[in-house]
């Protein structure tokens, strides 16, 4: 019998698990995919928004502001990359100025630190490549960039290090309530459920409550990712005014020095993560309006993610009508930025439920001061590299030439809790294949390492989702 089952191992579910893992609770995370962070968490703009955008009186507004402020400590605890590089909302003309002022005032109500409206000469000094026509910008110094999947992977790993369990490849299709308890898929018994199933949160809730009062409609966003050669194109996260044509498209550096461009916004079916000619064309046009010399020919990958747009317009984070069942639904943008605050809010809902049941949540157990950081060989100094090789000779095998990833890094990524199981799982964790050749060189080598370390046949190695075999030989043929 579990105390809490969390459905969905995206950034919401993972950070909730990480927070709850500090208590003596039996926790289980159930994820339908073969890895954590495979939903919206793996395909988004990767921005930790400053928090001036969502209305001050909404849950989104409050949790964005609060979540952003929590990121420094969280990055320290979980050892994921995070940089506060600041953002600029660019504008032209009187209408934009009014819009920027509104954002500024909304931000003030949420106590967003350091907001300023900057003049033309200042913004062109800060961003030499933007279109000369931009006249002013709202500057938010606390906006940051991170690696969203690494946030979720790190949080899962941390929670598992404290004893939480992770069940992959398991789609929740049935939930029954028997007395005070729930039984999931006819087998898993738990006292409480936290539904963090992203675009499927409404489907999950419908399994237990036929009179569900909200719906999630998916909206797709498509992206370009440019080679590191384009690094330095922009120094801050660039947005355009909400009034500006092409609203919503951003240009920003990524945590590893690439440039990310996107998204657009298109209503689609759930899980429809494809890209389209039209969508990419729109993103391209928007990008060129912001940065006319934007080197789109340096594109190395296109991808898309699906936002979980709630019918209520705001995050839905509450204990539902069914006691012991908590919904964390409609976590659209700025869900990544708000995630630490969402997890904190869920912790307090869980605490209230425990008080009500007379089984107090605390006291907290002794937890490590931080997750064991990954060793990124390419970021080490010469002396540290020599030391790393002396400690593990597999650091002398550079598997990925573009990102300079060693075999030892890959093996570690596979054997940690919430470890990599697929080619892309390895890529998200330690970056072989994330560079300009997109795995052309290292792919065969990573396939061999995965097969060896997981004790499976090469032909069983998957690229991404269950069944996405890299090779086509089949195991039986051998």
């Amino acid at each position, binding site marked *: 019998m579990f105390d809490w089952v969390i459905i969905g191992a995206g950034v919401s579910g993972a950070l909730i698990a990480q927070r709850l893992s500090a208590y003596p609770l039996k926790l289980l995370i159930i994820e339908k995919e073969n890895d954590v962070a495979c939903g919206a968490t793996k395909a988004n703009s990767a921005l930790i928004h400053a928090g001036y955008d969502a209305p001050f009186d909404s849950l989104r507004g409050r949790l964005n502001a609060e979540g952003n402020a929590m990121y420094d400590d969280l990055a320290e605890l979980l050892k994921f990359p995070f940089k506060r590089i600041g953002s600029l909302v660019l504008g032209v003309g009187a209408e934009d100025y009014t819009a920027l002022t509104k954002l500024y005032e909304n931000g003030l109500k949420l106590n967003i630190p350091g907001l300023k409206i900057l003049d033309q000469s200042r913004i062109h000094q800060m961003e030499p490549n933007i279109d000369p026509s931009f006249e002013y910008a709202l500057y938010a110094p606390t906006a940051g960039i991170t690696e969203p999947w690494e946030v979720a992977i790190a949080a899962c790993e941390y929670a598992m290090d404290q004893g939480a369990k992770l069940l992959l490849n398991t789609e929740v299709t049935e939930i029954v309530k028997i007395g005070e308890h729930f039984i999931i898929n006819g087998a898993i018994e738990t006292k409480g459920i936290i539904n963090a199933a992203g675009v499927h949160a409404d489907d999950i809730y419908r399994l237990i409550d036929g009179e569900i009062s909200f719906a999630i409609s998916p909206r797709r966003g498509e992206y370009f990712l440019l080679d590191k050669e384009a690094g330095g194109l922009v120094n801050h996260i660039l947005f355009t005014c909400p009034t500006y044509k092409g609203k919503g498209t951003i240009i920003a550096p990524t945590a590893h020095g690439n440039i990310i461009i996107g998204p657009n916004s298109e209503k689609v079916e759930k899980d429809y993560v494809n890209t*389209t000619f039209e969508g990419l064309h729109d993103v391209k046009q928007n990008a060129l309006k912001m940065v006319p010399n934007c080197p789109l020919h340096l594109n*190395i990958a*296109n991808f898309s993610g699906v936002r979980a747009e709630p019918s209520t317009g705001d995050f839905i984070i509450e204990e539902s009508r069914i006691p012991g069942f908590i919904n964390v639904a409609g976590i659209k943008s700025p869900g990544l930025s708000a995630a630490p605050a969402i997890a904190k809010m869920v912790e307090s809902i869980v605490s209230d439920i425990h008080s009500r049941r007379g089984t107090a949540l605390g006291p907290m157990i002794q937890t490590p001061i931080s997750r064991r950081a990954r060793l990124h060989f390419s970021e080490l100094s010469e002396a540290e*590299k020599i030391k790393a090789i002396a400690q593990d000779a597999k650091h002398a*095998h550079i598997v990925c*030439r573009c990102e300079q990833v060693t075999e030892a890094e890959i093996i570690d990524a596979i054997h940690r809790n919430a470890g990599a199981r697929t080619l892309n799982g390895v890529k998200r964790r330690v970056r072989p294949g994330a560079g300009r*050749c997109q795995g052309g060189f290292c792919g065969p080598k990573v396939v061999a390492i995965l097969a060896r370390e997981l004790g499976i046949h090469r032909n069983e190695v998957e690229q991404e989702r269950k*069944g996405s075999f890299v090779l086509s030989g089949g195991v039986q043929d051998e």
Partner: protein
Amino acid sequence: MNNKYDVIVVGGGPAGLAAASEAAKNSGVRVALIERDAFLGGILNQCIHTGFGLHHYKEELTGTEYAHRGIMSIEASSVDVYLEAMVMSIDEGHTVTLISQTLGYVKLWGGAIILAMGCRERARGSVIIPGTRPSGIFTAGTAQRYVNIEGDQVGKRVFILGSGDIGLIMARRMTLEGAQVLGVAELMPFSSGLTRNIVQCLEDFDIPLFLSHTVVKIEGETRLEQITIAKVDADYRPISGTEKTFACDTLLLSVGLIPENELSRQMALEMHALTRGPVINNLMQTSMPSVFACGNVAQVHDLVDHVSEEAERAGKHTAIFSKTVVPMLEKAITVETDDAFGMVSPQKLVRFDFENQPLQTAALRLRVKKPYTSAWLVIKSGDVQLMRLRKNHLTPGEMVHIAVDLNAMPLESETIKVYLEV
């Protein structure tokens, strides 16, 4: 261990092999050859087809046989070979840092360096094909590695985008492996591959070639299930209504090669916009005097024979450079081209070698952007015509080779320009 060399060669493909053994022929020249793979031979190790060596050895060899000859001459030489050793950086044009699986973190010093790192394939991102991101999409060279080196099966129903040589070779290879190759789509109205490969790899196997077509959609949630191609207009935009779909589990991309230029960039060598490799002169010297480049790292070649030829030249001149005290002071002539050309190499010409001996001719290699049945190649310095040559059957898949008479260059000229007159 003596870490001091006269010449250090980075990359052990055919370019590195030829450059290293040629350099080591000069007595007293100490040469190191560094290769990140476990074997020498470079990309040739996965080329088990024939078509190599007709010019260089006057024999038709497979890629592996060709590589073997180069490896034999290295083994017979005094060259120190470092295998499973990746060069991470080169500082001040002399200090080479490498990470070796057997020796660990190593620094070598070289009087001169030869870059011979080969090239890489352009990936899906460089062509932008909308759709999902299933498994089963490979660059043709990666698939070739899986099939020919690892002994894997990559797919059963195959479509190929791009009619570059590797794609053509793989069309035949996959067919022989028992896969069904459904077709090859090429964006341009002509193929960029060698004519002999079109005939021997497609026509002989009845594999259709769709010119002026591109892949407009990729479908499949896990493994690739289906692709859609469409005809393109003169601006390469897909024409709606011309779509054809193919159920397939594999898509191979043969959409171009780019010199492997991580190290060149890191050293801030001057790069050339057309070759996308470092700017070089006819002695194969880059903008950094102690650094030389040859083979696919300097410019993508279609025949390995030419790689070996220029690499031998690089090896010879580098060896002399490493022993010469006084650096060359002569100002080089810049070679420019008109719009008809997509590539020219070398981009600088000098008239004297490092021993101050006059050079008579320089080999110039050019690639046209589209095919011509007949045209004039004209070289001018300002308005003065220096050379005029008739060429038949020019195609982008086959480089044009010309010998430029260096004695005919006016002494005062700073640039010469190659024009194509139709």
